[in-house]
């Protein structure tokens, strides 16, 4: 039975999706029950799988599609990293979304596609070869679109169009790269240290071109400069969707794809041999700075957070591209750390908008007094992003910095310092307004924030603290990434 675990994890949300889509709009209790059952079940199954994988268990499920083409689900340590992130955050986001959309329209459609999104994410995490990865990656694009346009306004449709144009364009590049690689190398299963054999010697040019196509394909979702244009626009979507885009699924799928391509398709040695690491690292560095600089001038709170995501996700790419084991630990751990920090920020921002109608930085005055719970969560998230010890972000930055030295790239320290200063420059003014200014006269009337909105950001804020304080525990994100890195670099 245990060998079917990956399938079961996939099916919990894949089966929930059509059922929820078919449920009539008014059957609220039934929908909520299915949602929460699926989310809880998934957390449990993922926990079970993590324990099995840590104990050395191997999972492989295959379905033949065409000669040489297999649908392949597997679970390795890297899968578990992403699975754990998406399962836990999906659970919290579902609770939040149920509260957030209370009384709204089209909830069956929303939660149906929400589940489909998570199914796609889980599929990406457990894809055992590039073909399977591609299938779920495209599914994620399609499942997210209805969520981005959920509000149905002209603005959200415009954002949806642009989202689709970017991601389908990226999908084409990814498809071409994948077919090309299959044409050269046959099946491309993910395996530590790469699967290309002697191809780097025989076909270096083709491999370089394929690498560019693949990275461009996943880079759209990872919001790598200059492919990031869709992300700030997509913040018109409801807050739980932003959380999903920024923390749980979409940009994470892109960053995860970069990890898979560099580590498990090409392998660190091949990437080094072909000289592809330095350009990727440079691109990540540019994105880190560019995102932060753009974030400085945004008054719209969610837009500022969106640009911050562009910058922060590239820490992951940087950690991968530096090709040093220490930096890799930082980058991989940041997959989790950025996820829990950014989701905290978005959920708290959603609460500001719901509770007080506050959507801009300039309206944040006195929020600490008006909504202390959400503001504390937001503060923890912000300080974590800046990299204040002992929060999660500090751990990532520490390892990235040491990794830079380890890789003989002291510039990385300067980059991190610069980026942290910029982080501080766009987060601290928000905190200052929230805590040290008085609420404006005639502050908007307070609306009640139910527990469904209040608890998830508090829980993720607690996770930020835990991930930093307990970084050395064996099942912490950091501990797990050390385990992965020990497999990738031997």
């Amino acid at each position, binding site marked *: 039975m245990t060998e079917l675990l990956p399938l079961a994890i996939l099916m919990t949300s894949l089966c929930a999706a059509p059922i929820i*889509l078919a449920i009539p709009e008014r059957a609220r209790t039934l929908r909520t029950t299915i949602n929460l059952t699926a989310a809880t079940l998934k957390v449990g199954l993922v926990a079970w799988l993590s324990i099995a994988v840590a104990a050395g268990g191997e999972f492989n499920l295959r*379905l*033949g*599609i*065409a*000669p040489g*083409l297999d*649908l392949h689900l597997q679970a390795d340590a890297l899968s578990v990293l992403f699975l754990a992130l998406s399962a836990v955050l999906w659970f919290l986001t579902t609770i939040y979304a149920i509260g957030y959309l209370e009384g709204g*329209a*089209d909830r069956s*459609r929303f939660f149906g596609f929400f589940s489909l999104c998570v199914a796609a994410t889980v599929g990406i995490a457990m894809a055992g070869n590039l073909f399977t990865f*591609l*299938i779920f990656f*495209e*599914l994620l694009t*399609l499942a997210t*679109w*209805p969520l981005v*346009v*959920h*509000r*149905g*306004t002209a603005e*959200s*449709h415009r954002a*949806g*169009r642009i989202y*689709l144009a970017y991601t*389908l*364009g990226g*999908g*084409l590049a990814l*498809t*071409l790269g994948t*077919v*090309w690689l*299959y*044409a050269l190398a046959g099946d491309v299963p993910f395996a530590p240290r790469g699967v290309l054999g002697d191809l780097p010697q025989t076909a270096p040019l083709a491999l370089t071109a394929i690498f560019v196509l693949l990275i461009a394909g996943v880079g759209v979702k990872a919001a790598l400069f200059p492919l990031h244009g869709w992300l700030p626009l997509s913040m018109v979507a409801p807050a739980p969707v932003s959380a999903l885009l920024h923390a749980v699924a979409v940009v994470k799928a892109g960053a995860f794809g970069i990890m898979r391509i560099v580590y498990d398709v090409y392998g660190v040695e091949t990437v080094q041999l072909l000289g592809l690491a330095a350009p990727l690292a440079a691109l990540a560095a540019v994105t880190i700075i560019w995102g932060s600089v753009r974030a400085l001038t945004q008054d719209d709170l969610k837009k500022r957070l969106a640009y911050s995501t562009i910058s922060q996700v590239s820490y992951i790419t940087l950690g991968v591209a530096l090709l040093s084991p220490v930096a890799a630990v930082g980058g991989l751990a940041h997959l989790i750390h950025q996820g829990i920090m950014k989701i905290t920020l978005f959920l708290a921002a959603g609460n500001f908008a719901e509770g007080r109608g506050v959507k801009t930085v300039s309206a944040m005055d006195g929020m600490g007094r008006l909504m202390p719970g959400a503001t504390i969560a937001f503060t923890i998230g912000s300080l974590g992003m800046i990299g204040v010890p002992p929060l999660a972000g500090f751990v990532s930055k520490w390892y990235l910095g040491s990794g830079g030295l380890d890789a003989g790239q002291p510039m990385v320290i300067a980059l991190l310092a610069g980026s942290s200063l910029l982080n501080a420059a766009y987060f601290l003014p928000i905190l200052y307004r929230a805590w040290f200014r008085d609420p404006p006269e005639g502050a908007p009337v307070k609306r009640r924030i139910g527990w469904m909105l209040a608890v998830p950001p508090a829980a993720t804020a607690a996770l930020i603290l835990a991930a930093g304080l307990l970084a050395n525990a064996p099942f912490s994100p950091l501990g797990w990434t050390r385990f992965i890195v020990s497999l990738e670099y031997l």
Partner: protein
Amino acid sequence: MTEAYVLALLPFLAAVGAAATPRMAAIWGLCATLINLGASILLAARILSGGDMRADLGDWPAPLGISLVADGLAAVMLSMTAIVATAVALQAMSWGLVQPRGGQQRSRLQAGFWPLWLATLGALNALFLSGDLFNIYVTFEILGLSAVGLTALTGSRNSLRAAFDYLAAGLAGSLVFLLGVALAYAAVGRVDLAAVPALVDTATGRLALGLIFAGLAVKAALFPLHFWMPAAHSSAAPAASAVLSALVVKGALYLALRITIEAGAGIEVLRIALAVLGAAGMLWGSWMALRAERLKLLVAYSTVAQIGLITLAIGVADDPSTSAMWQAAALLMLSHALAKAAMFLAVGRIAEELGHDRISGLNRTDLRPGVAEFAFAIAAVSLIGLPPTAGFIGKWLLIDGLIDRGAWVWIALLLGGTALSAAYLSRVVSRCLRGGPHVAPGARRPEWRTGDVAALGLATTALALGLGSALPLTLLNGTAL
């Protein structure tokens, strides 16, 4: 071989029955379609286990008698036809053909629809089972005439005009085709498909092949000979449009594929011509679909584009003895048939609910999106060729083969066509995702109809077929090359 006889003859018998007893027409139609589905599945299963089969009607062998041959490719085409046929029959049963405009007209439409549709089905089956060009010519004639009848069925001015153009184009195409067959007979003294390689060796034979393909191009609505098609497909009744767009044009495409497979390596010029025209059709059809203002017209132009894609695939497929690229063309045909039929059925339903089919008006309504919109969206995913659909696997096989040959220009065209199809289909789907300010809180949702099962079922089959591609591909691999 009983199945083959059933497939080739039963629909015609049922057509006669339906014409003779109009009140029973729907019963005749449904029974014949279901038996047809069963027979096609049995035939596919038998070919899967035992290889190709052939039978001579009345025990007269090939040059004189009529012989039925069935291999994997034929089985795939027959099953494709049978699945679409079942869905179309279900939908026509449950809903009638157009907006109900009074019972009498509706029953007149029903009475006209079934005999014509059953004759179309029989002609298609016979075409896929035929082993020689003359028989194929005969099936084309039946197919063409019954398809014209289907086009004209609603009796509206637009559909009559479109049907007339269709008739004229179809007859011209048939004449050219017949001329080609006659020349082929003059060149090699026989007209069975196995004689095609011999045709390639003589000048007359090559001329004959050229004429045959010119005739096919008209019948398949290959760019630039598609002029008759968008009007015909967009003005017919929904069930008829689905048949015309999903199945009827496939007859000609199937034959083009069949002849290029038989001809092997000797027809480079023809292949290049097919690929170039296919690519041009793909781009032109997409462009027109991008600009279309009416939903039915958009879907019809999307058929022009998809026919282009399939022709491109037939054209660039290498010699089948060395490469499996032709299977991509077959898979794309299969995927297009299912998805396009689903789409036309869904469009019919959407237009019925809204009372119009203007694309710009799709989101200005108090109606919530229903099953038909959902079916349309899933069918769109197949037509674009996104994973995990069969269209995706088809494109994958195609690009895989092209990369092996280093044919980057074709790859670029293919990806460009894919991007365009995403662009014109998302125009519609984004409006189906209406919500928020456009929809009043108490807006009603279209009710469920049994006919909705047809569109949704076809669309999901097309979607799931990608994961089950192993089945059609195994059948195709068994094809005698």
